[in-house]
């Protein structure tokens, strides 16, 4: 049956869907939902050295790295400090989905990069329309945030207090 309908099946997106499946935020979402996200969300190709957003910008979107590398840079009194270099399958700017707040750090592409952009109003609409998908994503988001809190607490505990 599947072989019979092979001409109608879109195989080109399989790689991108596999990549989305590996993104922790979209963990345990089924293929149809991932395909829907891939169809609905905006994609943008960046050249090397492009600024995706700057520290302090109001954040309204989440980005998923589909291809290339993105460097997260924080401006400190000692100069720019690289916090992380994100590979395909990583995401950043997730706090923007919960609340519009200033970006904590800047995101700059290291090489030619393709990003998938999820805008806050799309996510809000998803929450209103499809509670199963949004609760799954929210749960994954909470998990990732709780890991941040743990990491920050560890840093605070370890850091000498003034």
């Amino acid at each position, binding site marked *: 049956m599947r072989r019979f309908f092979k*001409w*109608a099946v*879109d195989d080109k997106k399989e790689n991108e869907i596999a990549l989305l499946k590996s993104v922790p935020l979209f963990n345990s979402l089924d293929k149809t939902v991932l*395909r829907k996200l891939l169809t609905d969300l905006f*994609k943008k190709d*960046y050249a090397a050295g492009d600024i*995706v957003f*700057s520290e302090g*910008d109001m954040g309204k979107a989440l980005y998923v790295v589909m291809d290339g590398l993105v460097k997260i840079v924080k401006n400190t009194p000692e100069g720019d400090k690289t916090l992380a270099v994100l590979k395909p399958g990583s995401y950043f700017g997730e706090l923007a989905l919960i609340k519009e707040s200033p970006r904590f750090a800047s995101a*700059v592409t290291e090489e030619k990069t393709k990003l998938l952009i999820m805008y806050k109003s799309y996510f809000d609409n998803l929450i209103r329309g499809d509670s199963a998908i949004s609760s799954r994503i929210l749960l994954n988001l909470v998990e990732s945030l709780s890991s941040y809190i743990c990491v920050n607490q560890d840093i605070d505990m370890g850091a000498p207090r003034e």
Partner: protein
Amino acid sequence: MKNQERLNRELIHEIKKVHHQIPRWIILTMLLILLLFFAFHATSILIILLLSGVVAYILSTIINKAESVGMKRTVAVVLLFILWAGMITGAEMLLSPYLQEEIKNFYSRLPEISQQVEQILTQRSQDSVSAYPVTEDVIRKILSDLIKPVLFINKTLNFSEIFSQAASFFLGLIIVPFFVFFLLKDWPKMLNSIMAAVPSEYVETTVSLVSEMNILVGKYLRGLTLDCALVGIIATCGLWLSGVNYPISLGMLTAAANVVPYLGPLLAGSAACLIAFIQFGSISAVVNIILLYSAIRLMDDLIIQPHTVGKAVKLHPMLLVLTIVISHKLFGIFGMVIAVPFVTALQKVAVIIMERGEHPDAGLAVSRISHISL
């Protein structure tokens, strides 16, 4: 490398500052003037483009759904067109005999109808004059005003005009699906090239605007289509049950006219009343139709519209009148039907832009941020 990044950031700061210096209303006014200028010089192509855009937009939901279950976009579009053609053929086979008969009947009876109207009105006026002789002059004046348009329509309906209108209609019937097909098939590619042209610092602003527009305008257009279809079906059933002639044509007219708030239902109702008056020659039949259309209006306002279009998306009455007058002047009746939802959608876009104007820090102003949280 660090210096280069700093320079880049300073450059973006400067661009953003310049962006803030130009008041938004100037940009909007300029865009509006440009649009009107274009509209004035290329009305028919603009209507076709607008109509194709609206149809493609409404159908894109189905294509996106098919794509999310793993179907190739091109295959989904082709299948949709085959389905569409099938549905039109089916509907034509089912409705066409009745519709053709209705139209043929109406055109062949037009001279007779106008005579009938004249006769009925003259008869009624004579009755009124004999009852109230004082009103004679007033009644005669009203009567001549009423009969004039009927005779005018009768005289001006010549075949060359009908033929030229039918030709442009059929041209549209071929061009619109052609545009819709390619808009549906190539939209992701078009969107990618648009996104590629957007400078990276404006990506979030662009995506935010398009996303919000997409949600609001999409909801409105899909809701409006469903609303009009339901109103048309109810009107057809109601007219058919009341025994009025041409129920399908009148139902279709009611559905199309429903796009234009207030004025549309009034016009469709008047047409139905006129037909009923000619057919039955009694005021009670007209009252019945008025009651039917009032009931449809109430049902639409209280039950159908809140569930389909929603209350949030409505054109301001002042803007509505302006739209109707200008679009009628520019594009005629057909343009008016398309212009109303288009301007309603445009109003929504303007509201989003204004809201961003009130909160300029939404994705743009870097310099005003005084605190940073995680």
